[in-house]
């Protein structure tokens, strides 16, 4: 199969054009705009699927497409500076593309149900299209700069969608919080780009790998620290901001102010995962910068901490938000412990089940309509027993809960278990990884607990708000409400990601030796492979065959010697066993408390009151930032500087000069009045007045008289002047 630009570019451009068109027509032709958006994303899903199939057919860990074109060029003479943009698709991008377009398509379709009655139904799709194209652009990017560009664009979409209900004060606060918090990370990210640029000369991933392989980062310093560390840290800070890791996790729960489908797409499936994606792309840099331990700690803390907060949330979306943070923590943990493949797998599986969870939550929320406040109900204490009213949603959500909790056979088990297994492995190698690994296992326990708590509170037991329950309509299956949920729910089965459990040939698109395709295809970028790499110029026809790498045969132990492989396998088995135990424990505890009501949750609250308060206040992070850093630090500083600027500097140092000048002016005024004006000027006027009396008498007013005088004078004078001729 051959690629031309016309089979890649539409992936990004279709949603973008949908955005560009819809931005203008959305007010008048709302339905058409919605249709265009959906059609565009389905179209780009088609293209992405095409690419995915191609990669699956080639089935090589090294297969990739890389094309570049010049964006702008500042070269002049011997000064060279140009910025290239390009497309880089390898297996990871191909899978990511399929995930993003697939999830986005389903969420688009769900949105036509969820947002139907909203006043800004059309505008939602405008933002959604822009966001999707930005996300796809990020996935396709071949360099950090364009990643940054799309990154920020996604930030803008996130800002707009969080503030979608702009009448609400809270939405405004949440949107600015989200944007600014991620912006902190972005600024670091930009600094990382600058640092890398100063060494590499551009920021293409491939060139970064090449430079690392050539030892270009060795010994380079920036700000007194090794430059590789600075760069890796800066870029990881980007991940921290975007993927809501500690300490910049505060924005994600607030981001739930946005409409639920947007939470599903942006704040669960794609954008937050993009942070992890970036870390994975820059994985060699993280290694060179010796940052993996720190990353593992950040990931572990986030995974555990967010899970603890999720324990006490009563808002169904808040629970999901904290679970998202927690799961992202797992991915980051995976990056930190060197579990490249598993981290990415968790990214994909998480995207699927979390999108489904959010959509299901949306389905629940949308059905629960409070007739007193005319709003939708998100509070779990007012739900209960809903499985009878909405069976399809219940099924979808249950499957996803199994997945996220790590129940065997489901995707979450496959991916999370592998991360935890690798963490265990890392802990075995180095003691510094023990704490992250422990946090990871603890978090898994809590995850199982709070997810089932949510399920039990929502769908099981007796309805706690009878009136609300009675007003809720019976769920009927509909193409845009349940079908997307069920499709997503199907893909929570682990078999799709690891073919090993049920044997091969499950999915026809995979080749016949495709057991563990995910493990095979997604391998961490070994910098050595890129040493002699030349990127291709961008052209309308494909020249890929000339420069791509050799196809490699399938090798399940890629890069690992045999004995090490055995050890890994052993540790992973232990980890899997622990995971299963933990899941059983967590589900059991949840069932005891919320299904069977044998344990009273109130006892726990009272016993650990101080801890409960800390959880309620999200470990005081928000207070620290808003009340401490901004209100006590930034704003007073601003006011002080502004007061100095206008009140002191401008008033005294600048305007003070006028008093000096005024004194001088008094003296010169006296001189001017007396000497110059009175004597010199008025005197002249008086002398002129004398003259006019004389001249007035010559004017007779008869034209011909003047004429004759003129003629005579002329004649006379010409006579005189011609005497000497």
């Amino acid at each position: 199969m051959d690629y031309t630009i016309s089979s890649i570019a539409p992936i990004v451009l279709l949603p973008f054009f949908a955005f560009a068109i819809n931005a203008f027509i959305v007010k008048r032709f709302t339905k058409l705009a919605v249709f265009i958006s959906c059609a565009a994303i389905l179209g780009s899903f088609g293209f992405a699927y095409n690419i995915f199939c191609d990669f699956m057919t080639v089935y090589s860990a090294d297969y990739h497409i890389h094309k570049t074109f010049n964006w702008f060029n500042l070269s002049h003479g011997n000064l060279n500076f140009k910025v290239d943009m390009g497309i880089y698709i390898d297996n990871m991008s191909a899978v990511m593309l399929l995930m993003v377009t697939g999830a986005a398509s389903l969420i688009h379709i769900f949105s036509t149900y969820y947002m139907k009655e909203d006043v800004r139904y059309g505008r939602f799709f405008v933002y959604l299209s822009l966001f999707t194209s930005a996300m796809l652009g990020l996935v396709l990017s071949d360099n950090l700069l364009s990643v940054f560009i799309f990154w920020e664009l996604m930030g803008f979409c996130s800002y707009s969608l969080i503030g979608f209900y702009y009448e609400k004060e809270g939405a405004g606060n949440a949107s600015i919080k989200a944007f600014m918090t991620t912006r902190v990370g972005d600024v670091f990210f930009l600094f990382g780009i600058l640092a890398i640029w100063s060494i590499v000369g551009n920021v293409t991933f491939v060139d970064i790998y090449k430079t690392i392989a050539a030892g270009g980062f060795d010994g380079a310093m920036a700000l007194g620290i090794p430059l590789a560390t600075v760069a890796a840290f800066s870029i990881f800070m980007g991940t921290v901001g975007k993927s809501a890791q500690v300490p910049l996790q505060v924005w994600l729960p607030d981001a739930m102010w946005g409409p639920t489908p947007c939470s599903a797409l942006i704040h669960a499936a794609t954008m937050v995962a993009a942070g992890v994606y970036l870390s994975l792309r820059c994985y060699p840099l993280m290694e060179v910068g010796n940052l993996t331990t720190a990353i593992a700690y950040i990931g572990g803390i986030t995974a555990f901490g967010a899970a603890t907060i999720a324990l006490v949330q009563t808002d169904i979306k808040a629970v999901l938000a904290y679970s998202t943070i927690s799961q992202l923590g797992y991915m980051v943990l995976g990056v930190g412990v060197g579990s490249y493949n598993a981290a990415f797998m968790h990214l994909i599986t998480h995207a699927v089940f979390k999108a489904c969870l959010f959509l299901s939550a949306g389905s629940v929320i949308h059905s629960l309509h409070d007739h007193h406040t005319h709003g939708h109900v998100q509070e779990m204490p007012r739900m209960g027993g809903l499985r009878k009213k909405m069976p399809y949603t219940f099924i979808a959500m249950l499957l996803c809960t199994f997945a996220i909790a790590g129940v065997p056979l489901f995707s979450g088990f496959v991916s999370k278990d592998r991360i935890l297994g690798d963490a265990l492995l890392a802990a075995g190698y180095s003691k510094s990884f023990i704490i992250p690994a422990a946090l990871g296992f603890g978090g898994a326990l809590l995850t199982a607990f709070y997810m089932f708590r949510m399920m039990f509170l929502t769908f099981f037991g007796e309805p706690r708000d009878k009136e609300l329950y009675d007003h809720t309509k019976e769920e009927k299956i509909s193409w845009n409400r349940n079908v997307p949920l069920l499709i997503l729910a199907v893909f929570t089965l682990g078999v799709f990601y690891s073919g090993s459990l049920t044997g091969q040939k499950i999915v026809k698109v995979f080749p016949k030796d495709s057991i563990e395709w995910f493990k095979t295809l997604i391998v961490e970028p070994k910098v050595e492979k890129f040493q002699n790499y030349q990127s291709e110029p961008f052209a309308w026809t494909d020249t890929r065959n000339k420069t791509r790498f050799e196809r490699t045969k399938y090798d399940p132990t890629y890069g690992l010697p045999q004995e090490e492989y055995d050890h890994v396998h052993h540790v992973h088995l232990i980890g899997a066993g622990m995971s299963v135990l933990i899941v059983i424990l967590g589900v059991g505890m949840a069932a005891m408390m919320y299904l069977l009501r044998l344990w009273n949750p109130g006892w726990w609250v009272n016993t650990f009151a101080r801890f409960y308060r800390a959880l309620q206040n999200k470990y005081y992070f928000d207070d620290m930032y808003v009340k401490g850093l901004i209100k006590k630090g930034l704003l007073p500083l601003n006011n002080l500087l502004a007061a100095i600027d206008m009140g002191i500097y401008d008033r005294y140092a600048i305007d003070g000069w006028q008093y000096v000048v005024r004194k001088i002016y008094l003296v010169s005024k006296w001189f001017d009045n007396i000497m110059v004006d009175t004597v010199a000027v008025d005197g002249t006027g008086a002398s002129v007045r004398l003259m006019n009396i004389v001249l007035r008498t010559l004017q007779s007013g008869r034209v011909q008289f003047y004429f004759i005088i003129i003629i005579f004078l002329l004649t006379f004078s010409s006579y005189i002047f011609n005497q000497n001729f």
Partner: protein
Amino acid sequence: MVTLGSYLFLSFALFVAGLAVIIARKNIIAMLLGIELMLNAAALNFVAYTRFVNSNIDGHIMALFIIVIAAAEAAVGLAIVIRFFQLRESIHIDDAAQLQN
């Protein structure tokens, strides 16, 4: 033989005719006619000198400007005359002696 002198003579005759009209007539429009004659005399001189003395084109330019000035003068002059006539019901030159004394 036509020489410079003939043109100068013609131009002089024209000038004198214009002068006579100006001095002799009391009608303002007639005086304007005289002025036109005088201007033409001057222009004719310029062109004649251009032809006979040097072939510099500047004489023609000067004549052109004279024509321009004549046109402007005729327009403004007639406007003044008409306005004067509206005010005084007369176009006698001696009626236009308000400035006297």
